[in-house]
């Protein structure tokens, strides 16, 4: 099958052929064991699929819930695709909201608002899931193709339902909205003559070989100019191409375009006829009148055969067939190889947002905003960030600067942050941490076997002595102490004999020493639990 190409002049012809062959394959006339597969990148329209129409209706509805036609279409398609058993017509009555929603999945009705916030591609992926389209095998090809369009649209244009729908309505009849098929499978190809330029096939079929030599419809506009009085000062004006022009002062333009058009169409015939390696089959309507003018390529062919005695020898008058040579069944080794195929059984789609979230820094930020309405900014929040880069007293300025650069503080807020910081340093314990007598490391990474990394906000060392400090932005919690105790524990295992631990709550500047004795027992239970769990 792969060696066969069917060439057409226009996409619409291809669409007719595809529709015909597909219908034939599914009809009783189809011969068992025969491969009727055809592929075409231009001839299969996506919006012939129920699933795609359902998605589009859902988009229209989400865009404007009051759009009665979208409502009708949505309920109708949902009913049609899931074969609920309710009469199709009933689904069209959508003025009653409850009745309307009874046709739609609960998930859809419930998530309407959330859905609208999704980017276009995610929206359609989610709709596929919500409407259960991903399990309908016959629809998968169309869903894929539709999603390809959505993907390419949303990476190119504004990510907006209305924009997409507008684009779709303008392009739904064009090649852009047609199915794409992989080339390397065993199926006959349907393509336009224009696309076939430069390609070759073992056997070529040309149905509809009867295009007009002159412009047939969609007459182009010619830009013309004339020295005749009426038009003298008009410069170039557009006129519709028509044979009437032959008798006007624009006849030169007409003749030129006429000749060009004939030549184009003859060239096309040449291209079509020269694609075949082994066999060429052409069908065209016989001319109604024997001696009519050769205005189309079919009549031209007919005339050419009739006028040439040599060609007439092979002309079968009864069947109106001209044949030369014989069509052989190709030897197996002459058939092109095709690659093995794999079939998509379902369209996998699921909600990634359950498994993965975007990082949440914003929630906290706006919580704080709410507590103290906009203008007044609580500076304690920034201290955590400053402290995590600051080692010694003399590094304050550079630390603040890096925060400004990251966009978290505005220059004019700087002074306030500085003030907050010096308030914090009034506490002698805190102040002593930033003394040069310590070896200081911030954001220290400790490796614990099997557990991975523990990151300590601040570690100060002198010989066998170690002080660990953890900065917290929230309110004091038990969990915080346990964490610091854990750090202290790790440090002891690393042969520090004198280990102290502190918590610093930056919002209120509160410092808390964490004593190991008090909660030691707790740690032990933790450990034993861990042991139990392992054994």
């Amino acid at each position, binding site marked *: 099958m792969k060696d066969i190409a069917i060439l057409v002049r226009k996409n619409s012809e291809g669409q007719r052929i595809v529709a015909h062959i597909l219908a034939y394959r599914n009809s009783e006339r189809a011969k068992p064991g025969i491969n009727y597969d055809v592929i075409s990148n231009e001839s299969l329209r996506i919006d012939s699929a129920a699933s795609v129409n359902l998605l589009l209706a859902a988009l229209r509805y989400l865009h404007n819930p009051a759009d009665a036609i979208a409502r009708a279409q949505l309920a109708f398609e949902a009913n049609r695709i899931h074969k609920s058993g309710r009469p199709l017509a009933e689904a069209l009555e959508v003025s009653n909201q409850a009745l309307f929603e009874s046709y739609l999945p609960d998930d859809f009705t419930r998530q309407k608002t959330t859905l609208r916030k999704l980017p276009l591609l995610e929206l359609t992926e989610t709709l596929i899931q919500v409407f259960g389209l991903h399990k309908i095998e016959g629809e998968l090809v169309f869903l894929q*193709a539709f999603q390809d369009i959505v*993907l390419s649209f949303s990476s190119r244009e504004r990510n907006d339902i209305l924009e997409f729908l507008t684009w779709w309505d303008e392009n739904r009849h064009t090649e852009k909205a047609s199915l794409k098929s992989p080339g390397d499978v065993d199926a006959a190809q349907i393509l336009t003559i224009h696309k076939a330029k430069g390609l070759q096939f073992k056997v070529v079929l040309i149905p509809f070989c009867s295009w007009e030599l002159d412009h047939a419809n969609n007459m182009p506009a010619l830009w013309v100019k004339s020295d005749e009085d009426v038009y003298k000062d008009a410069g170039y004006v557009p006129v519709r191409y028509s044979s009437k022009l032959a008798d006007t002062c624009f006849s030169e333009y007409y003749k030129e375009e006429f000749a060009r058009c004939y030549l184009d169409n003859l060239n096309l015939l040449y291209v079509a006829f020269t694609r075949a390696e082994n066999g060429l089959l052409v069908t065209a309507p016989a001319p109604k009148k024997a001696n009519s003018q050769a205005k189309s390529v079919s009549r031209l062919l007919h005339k050419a055969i009739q006028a040439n005695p040599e060609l007439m020898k092979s002309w079968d008058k009864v069947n109106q067939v001209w044949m030369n040579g014989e069509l052989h069944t190709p030897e197996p080794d002459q058939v092109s190889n095709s690659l093995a195929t*794999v079939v998509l*059984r379902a369209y996998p789609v699921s909600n990634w947002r359950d498994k993965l979230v975007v990082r949440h820094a*914003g929630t906290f930020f706006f919580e704080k905003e709410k507590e103290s309405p906009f203008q007044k900014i609580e500076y304690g929040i920034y201290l955590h960030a400053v402290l995590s880069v600051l080692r010694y007293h003399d590094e304050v300025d550079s630390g603040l600067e890096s925060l*400004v650069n990251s966009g978290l503080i505005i*220059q004019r807020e700087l002074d306030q942050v500085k003030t907050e910081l010096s308030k914090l340093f009034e506490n002698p314990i805190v102040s002593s941490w930033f003394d040069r007598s310590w070896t200081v490391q911030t954001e220290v990474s400790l490796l614990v076997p099997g557990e991975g990394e523990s990151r300590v906000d601040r570690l100060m060392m002198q010989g066998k002595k170690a002080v660990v400090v953890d900065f917290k932005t929230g309110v004091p919690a038990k969990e915080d102490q346990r964490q610091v105790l854990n750090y202290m524990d790790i440090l002891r295992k*690393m042969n520090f004999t004198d280990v102290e631990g502190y918590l610093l709550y930056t919002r209120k500047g509160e410092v808390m020493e964490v004593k190991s004795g008090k909660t030691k027992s707790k740690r032990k239970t933790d450990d034993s639990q861990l042991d139990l769990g392992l054994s």
Partner: protein
Amino acid sequence: MTPFLYNIANELIARKKPLQHVTLVFPNRRATLYFRKYLTDCIQNPVFSPKLLTIEEFISGFSTWRVPDRLELVHRLYTVYGNEVNLEEAFDRFYYWGEMLLRDFDEIDKYLVNAGHLFKDLSNLKELDTQFDYLTPDHKEYLMNFWGSIRAGTSENKQKFVEVWRSLGTVYTKFRSELSGAGLAYEGMLHRHVADNLSLRDDESGPGEVSFIGFNALTKAEEKIIAWFVEKKASNVYWDVDEYYLNTEWQEAGEFFRKYMNDPVFRKTFPSDIPANLRKEKTVQVFGAAQPVGQVKLLGQVLEEALSKGVKPDETVVVLPDEKVLLPVLHSVSGFVDSLNVTMGFPLSSTPLFNLIELIMDLQIGRRGDYFNHRPVIALLGHPYSTAPDPNAAHAKRKEILEKNWVYIPKNFLASSTDLHRLMFVDTDEKSIIPYLRAIILCIGSMAEIGKMDKEYAYYFLKVINRMEEVLGHDYSSLQSFLKLFRQLVRFQKIPFSGEPLRGLQVMGMLETRNLDFKNVFILSLNEGSLPSYETKGSYIPYSVRKAYALPTVEHQDAMYAYLFYRSVQRAQNVFLFYNTETDVLGQGEMSRFLRQLIYESGLKLEHRILNNTIHPHQIEPIIIPKDSKVLEALNKLNEGSARFRGISPSALSVYLDCRLQFYLKHILKIREANEVEEDLDARVFGNLLHEVMEKFYVQLVDRKKSKLVEVTDFDHADDQLSKLLDDAVKQLYHLDPGKPVDYDGQRLIVREIVKRFANQIFEADRKRAPFVIEGTELEGLVYTLQLNTEPGKAVLGGKIDRVDRKGDEIRIIDYKTGMDKSEFESIESLFVREKKRNKAAFQTMVYALMYVRNTGIGKGRVVPGLLSRSNLFDDASSFGLIMNKQIITNALPLLPEFEMHLKSLLEELFGTDQPFDQTTDTNTCRLCPYNRICYR
């Protein structure tokens, strides 16, 4: 096969030395994460972690300079450039070029190129020989060719190029000195500075022991720095190579390594036995699919199969050379794994907040004084954030705007009901746009009705806005200029995903795979353009010049991608490769050369398959609505009068003749087309205006004269009256302020002229006909009950006749037609024919004639139905009246019985039970049918 990084970690721990003074330098952050994990796998007790740095962090540790963000750098460059070359461009227009120039400077420095020489105008080729003795003859050749072609041409573009080129050297120098003066640098500048000053730090304590791990394609600066450490500090360099591409001359993946192997310093850092993993046995499966989504969904299926056979998600990576497919991939794979980790972020430009801001900018840019254009307003009122606090308020506003057909909406109407609306619908300009947007974003971020994710978006946008204010202040030349810059800044911003970084299925871009090894590797988009990427970022420095100065070129990039590809599969056991079988319209994007190489050169056994789902055609089932009791009940309602609906109109009957199903949808179910603000003055609006004007004219005339007689003199001031009537009609249509004059512009101006000409033409005809009597205009409420022989026994017709007038015994039934309607038809029967051409206007006027005659009971005289249309108003030859079978109808009375008979059987069919509502077979009718989507037509 143990991962590359694991081997090194193991080696490090095996030395049993403290690690805190060891520094390990990696190409990227992800490599450090994995390395740290491998370290904890190898240790017995807690230890201080060694310093794990990216090369950028490592290098910047040797400098006190700070690297500001791109916005600040480009802005500083803008100032320097502006001083140098008398720049007239606004910053937003400069930004793109500024970024490009900055990139060029960055590369020049990273590759230690002499910028003074590079930016020299060499169109005078003599200097080339004398000054540039450090260039190889090959490289000189490149320069000669390039400058030779520049010299040969005199085109304006070339002149311009030389002009800009000459200034770049100075800009480069000044920019650098300006930055260093402020303690700042761009990355390349910093790298170069460090590379050039390394010797000074020779005896310092420095970073202790340093090793460099997994590098390829080093910049000259990096090369110099690493070489210095190798020489002076005996640093180790760990190369992640395979004999397959290292020892084969034509494998571009090994190009850089072969160079380093010949380098006197680096030579000794290569191991004596080069690993040979790539050609060890592994399963390789290749899948082709048409278009990206096919690949992505097939990936889901193949992954699911692999997982069911025992493949562990933790040992599996999905590599995306084309980042665009990230979201489809997430949807496709997340159902099969418990957790996944993604190194790429969520694009800020895909967020609803970005859409909102774009709409707000549309709103402000399209603002006229105190009025906003309906398009952004309607869109904003429907936006999820805008409706969140009070959905009903937003909905009610939207509805009112549609009902009033407000093209421009006063801001006071909008700026009410919710905080957000009060903030959005005020006027702002380029000077106050920053605080305006900030207030809106803060308001959204603080709304109780939105989700965590939404707050996250708000947070990131706030950061962008703050940065813009910080660097640029409030100085924008226009709102458009602000928007352009804003878009450029947002385009590449991503919100990071959070998740346990090393747990579950890993999804990453091609660059992130460096140094990492997975047992199972899936790579998508193996097509030219994605891998190798064709993404060239643009540069001021032409190819030949780049070649001459050994700056990176396309070949450089290809070699780098080749390495990334081979490296990512070399230690894997199961490899799954996906590509798009279809090239794009330009024939680009065929199967990646690397994939072809693997298939044909590697000798690996591959399984190659194509995704092909058979297409099942749908039998599109016809839609047929049988007339059950419910439908019949609804049908009977057509006969009942109501405030808005009186009888069945001729146009409804026309619809029924066109397509029974369309009639059902439109007139039984009353599914109406969605309301939209009519801004464009389409044919319908035009017709409405003409009808309105004509009606008012005669109503006022009759009122004024207290008589229905129309005389010649009545048209003396018709023109003035017309203008006023038209103004009123337009004001009414668009709900404009009645007190203010109408502002005709653009399309409205044209329509005004057409309506005027049309109306004048009618007046002219009427003046010629005067005196005559106006019997009625826009006759509403006229109904006629037709007796039917079948259930329900009657049918009520109704409609609105445009005008009835009388002169002598001739009564004219007039319909104004602004379209292409014709007066001609073949026979009475032809007015009822389906699925062929039918004269709808004639049908309509005949129905009116029937209604009028039956209502008034006229039995004698002449009744002449006809159109006042384009064809007979503007063509002197034609006269008033319908034309049946080429004969003008001078009296319709004799035709009415036949007409009524046909009408009756039509209505009997409509009300009868035999004929269901079905679809027309003439698909031409469907082209303009609002329901064509339901029928798939």
